[in-house]
């Protein structure tokens, strides 16, 4: 993993353990990527729950499988290092980049063609006090 940086280690006046730095850096970067991917997935899930209608929910769901999944795959690629696994993960990421927007488009198109009207115009989440009196089917989304 640290092949290209090891040879420069003796030339350095201060003896920095580049191997360990690189290893820790990679581990940190991959962890950060995976965690941020997970955060995006969580935000997407929240969005699916909170959004008012089908098409806006689709945005949240689409966010999940673009950035969430891609970040997680990037993190896994960093962990795999230079190996066949990285190539395979790259292929997975590429296919995801290609197919997930297609799936989103297909679902949106099907909903549009079957006559679902998108809810347009400004929308604000209702205040908690507004929904309290109502039954769940009326108020909460």
């Amino acid at each position, binding site marked *: 993993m640290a092949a290209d940086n090891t040879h420069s280690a003796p030339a350095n006046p201060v003896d920095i353990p580049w191997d360990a730095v690189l290893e820790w850096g990679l581990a940190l970067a991959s962890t950060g990527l995976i965690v941020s991917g997970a955060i*995006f997935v969580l*935000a*997407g899930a*929240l*969005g699916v729950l*909170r*959004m*008012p*209608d089908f*098409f*806006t929910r*689709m*945005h*949240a769901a*689409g*966010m999940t499988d*673009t*950035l969430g999944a*891609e970040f997680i795959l990037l993190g896994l690629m960093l962990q795999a290092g230079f190996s*066949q696994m990285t*190539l*395979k993960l790259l*292929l997975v990421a*590429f296919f995801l*980049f*290609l197919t*997930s*927007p*297609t799936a*989103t*488009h297909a679902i*949106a*198109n099907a909903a*549009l*063609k079957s006559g679902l009207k*998108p*809810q*347009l*115009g*400004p*929308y*604000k*989440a209702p205040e908690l006090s507004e929904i309290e009196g109502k039954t769940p089917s009326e108020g909460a989304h």
Partner: protein
Amino acid sequence: MVRYAIILALVMLLYWLTLSFYFEPLIVGFGIASVLFAVGLCYRMRILDSETVPYMHTMTTIGYFGWLFLEVVKANFAVVKAVLRPDMEISPTLLTVPTPQKTDIGKTMFANSITLTPGTVSMDIDDDGILVHALLAEMADPDDFVEMGQRAGFSVSEVSS
């Protein structure tokens, strides 16, 4: 058609070797047989054309995907912010974006890029352009899509008007 078949076979062989990583003669022979089967099936399905084999534009497409990924990351924060805000101020808007691309694959690239970018989903595509559903009103400006459309067209080696 023969040209497409040869290119497809070569790319598929590369794909097989990437997946397999066994370089024994037997396994590679199986790989060649599989590739021939796949190309033969495509031939029978009559899909051996520039849409099935768009590998001539690989380099530009890789560059475009890099640019697109940065755009996706940038656009994501607006959507995440909109989703996580307690009052969740959104204003869904519909707009039609013209498609300057000539080929279908360029149009596909453009529409998929719009869908990939968070906050905009391409809902329908016809002669007029792409019907886009935008989550926020400030995302619904057709001028914002011009650069993406040009790049998407360029990535599949066509000059956009």
